[in-house]
Every structure is written in structure tokens, then in C-alpha cells.
């Protein structure tokens, strides 16, 4: 008679060996993080380029808002690293801190803004719409390790930067609008990332 525990150990060994044969060479987490960051930054840059080509923003906007655009890209980079780094606690804390600071500056720096005939909800919709691809990438990255709320939050904030990048260039309305329709939409993308990723079964349970 065979010992069930030994059978289980043998079964698990066979399954792991089969998996090893499927992917003989390990993918370093840094390469995966580079893919995530590149995807997020590419979406932001593409959205920014489309905004300039559509004449919704000019060179003066790029110069005036340059520091904030760079800050948004920095949040995307740190959030992307946090999504995959084995030392997520440090990177996630940095990403959340940087995102909150950037949100505050986005709101305060806008001031009274300029009146617009475009309905305000268009900004929210654009923000969420442009965030869908980064959100999909974020969900993929979060499945590569065990779920933690800190990592999911940082990743969601990173994914939401693409919409904020577009909003910063294409919209000229005031602080209250930015707070509700830009920061609100950014937080909505983040919340969706946290909630959806929590329900997904991770591909690995590695820290």
C-alpha cells in the first residue's frame, strides 16, 4: 500500500517538472517590470501626442505642465516597479506617496482654470477609457505574485497615470473640476484595479 502523502509529493513533483519543461528559462522580475512601465508610459505618450496633433494642447502647455507630466511618468515608473518587485513594501509606499503628492499638486496648480463648453463628465470618461489598457497590464502584473493590498494600490495608481497625463494636457478647467473629474477618475481606476485583482487567482503565490 502506498502512502498518500508520498503520492501527493510525487504528483506535485511531476507537475512542477512539467511546468519547468514548458518554461526552462526563468524570466527576471525586472524584465517584467520594464514591460509594465514601458506599456504605461507608451499609452501616456501616445495620448499626449494625439492631444497635440488634435490641437487640444500646444507647445506652451507642454512647457507649462512639463514638470507635472514628468511627475506623472515618475509615478508610473515607481508604480510599475512596485507591481512586480519582490520588495514591494518599500516601492509601494513610495508609489502611493508620490501619487498622493502629485494629485495634490495637480489640483492646487490648476487654479481657476478656463471655462469650457465640453461637459465635465467627458474628462472622467476619457480618463477611465484611456486607463483600460494600463489597467489590463496592471492586472497581468499583479497575477505574477501573491496579492497584497499595498501592491495592488500602488499598481492601480500607476495604471491611472495615463488618464491623468491626458487630462493634464487636454483639459484647462479649474481646480474643483480636476479634483472631481481627474483625480476622482484616477482613484476609480485604482479602485477597479484593487477590487478586480483581489478576485483573480494569482499565477504564483511568490512574495
Amino acid at each position, binding site marked *: 500500500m502506498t502512502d*498518500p*502523502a508520498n503520492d*501527493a*509529493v510525487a*504528483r*506535485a*513533483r511531476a*507537475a*512542477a*517538472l512539467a*511546468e*519547468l*519543461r514548458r*518554461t*526552462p*528559462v*526563468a*524570466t*527576471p*522580475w525586472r*524584465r*517584467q517590470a520594464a514591460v509594465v512601465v514601458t506599456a504605461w508610459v507608451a499609452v501616456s505618450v501616445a495620448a499626449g501626442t494625439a492631444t497635440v496633433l488634435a490641437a487640444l494642447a500646444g507647445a506652451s502647455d507642454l512647457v507649462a505642465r512639463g514638470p507635472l507630466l514628468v511627475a506623472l511618468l515618475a509615478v508610473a515608473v515607481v508604480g510599475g516597479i512596485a507591481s*512586480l518587485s*519582490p520588495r514591494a*513594501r518599500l516601492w509601494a509606499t513610495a508609489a502611493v506617496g508620490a501619487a498622493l503628492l502629485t494629485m495634490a499638486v495637480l489640483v492646487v496648480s490648476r487654479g481657476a482654470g478656463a471655462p469650457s463648453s465640453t461637459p465635465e463628465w467627458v474628462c472622467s470618461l476619457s480618463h477611465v477609457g484611456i486607463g483600460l489598457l494600463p489597467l489590463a497590464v496592471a492586472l497581468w502584473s499583479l497575477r*505574477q*505574485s*501573491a*496579492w*497584497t493590498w499595498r501592491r495592488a494600490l500602488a499598481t492601480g495608481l500607476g495604471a491611472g497615470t495615463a488618464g491623468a497625463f491626458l487630462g493634464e494636457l487636454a483639459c484647462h478647467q479649474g481646480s474643483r473640476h480636476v479634483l472631481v473629474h481627474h483625480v476622482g477618475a484616477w482613484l476609480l481606476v485604482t479602485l477597479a484595479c484593487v477590487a478586480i485583482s483581489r478576485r483573480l487567482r*494569482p*499565477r*504564483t*503565490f*511568490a*512574495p
Partner: protein
Amino acid sequence: MQPSNDDALMEQFCRGDEDAFEILYARHAPAVLAFLTRMVRDAALAEDLLQVTFLSVVRARGRYQLGTTLRAWVFAIAGNAGRDALRRQRARPEDLSRAVPVAAAAPPTETVDPGTTRVVQEALMQLPLEQREAVVLHKMHELSFEEIATVLGITVSAAKVRAHRGYQRLRVLLAPLDVGEMS
């Protein structure tokens, strides 16, 4: 000649060396199964989680950082998989009714009276999960508090506090048995 060091074996394993994986598996799998059995208190689930754990080890080996303790890393994966399974089980209570009792699944303890072993295991099962993990890792798998902190993703002092509270609770639960010093 085969390297005996876990890190050297991990390097080979990361390049797809099956022999290196076999050595690491033989070294760590039995302890991981024992840990999972004590953690989830369900023999069948623990066996499934052993497979999940080592599939994770294979898939996530690019996340392993040389210089960290491999044993702690593998136990961390097992702990994460166990906690996730327990969380999903709580969300679907019908799964609990199919659980195989842990008494049948618990790894045997040598040179101890079976009756005492059963009572200790039952007391262990009455501990909250976070205390049980810390006590099992410290007492039964002889991990250091640094390793336990890595496994549980907490600070070393938090690991000590969890284990201390677990031992205190066990002392109370085992007082009628007079099992002796627990820590």
C-alpha cells in the same frame, strides 16, 4: 559534482536544470507539506497546495533573490497559497464540509505518546491562524524569527510577538495536560 548550497542550486534551476530542481524539491517538499497540513487542517487541501506551491516556485523563480533564504522563500509561497485557499474556502462554506480531518493527515511525531500528540495538535488548531503559523514555523520547522518574518511578510519583532502570544495561549490550553515548556 553537485552543489549542495541552495543558492547555487537555484542558479542552475533558474537556467532550467531539472536535476537542481529535483534536489531542491527533495530537500524542501516534505517540510512544506507538513507545514501546509498543520496550517489548513485538511489533508487533501494541503496536498493540492503543495502542488500549487511548487508550481509557483517554478513560475516565480525569476523573483527569487540570491542571498535570501530559499527555505523561507518557499515557506512564504506555501503560506500565501494556504491563506488564499482558506480565504476562498470561507467565501464558499460548502467546501469546508468536504475537508479531510487533520488528525488523519497530521505528520507523525516521533517518540511522543500518540494521545499527547493529538491533544497538542488540537490545541494548536485552536490558535488563530497568524499565531499558529508563527508557532508551527518556529517550534516544528525550527525557522529563525528572521526567516519567519520573511515567510509572513512582517517585521522580526512582529514575528516574535505572534509566536509569543501563540505559546502563551498554548500554555493555557495545555495546562491540564502538563506538557512542559513550549518555548
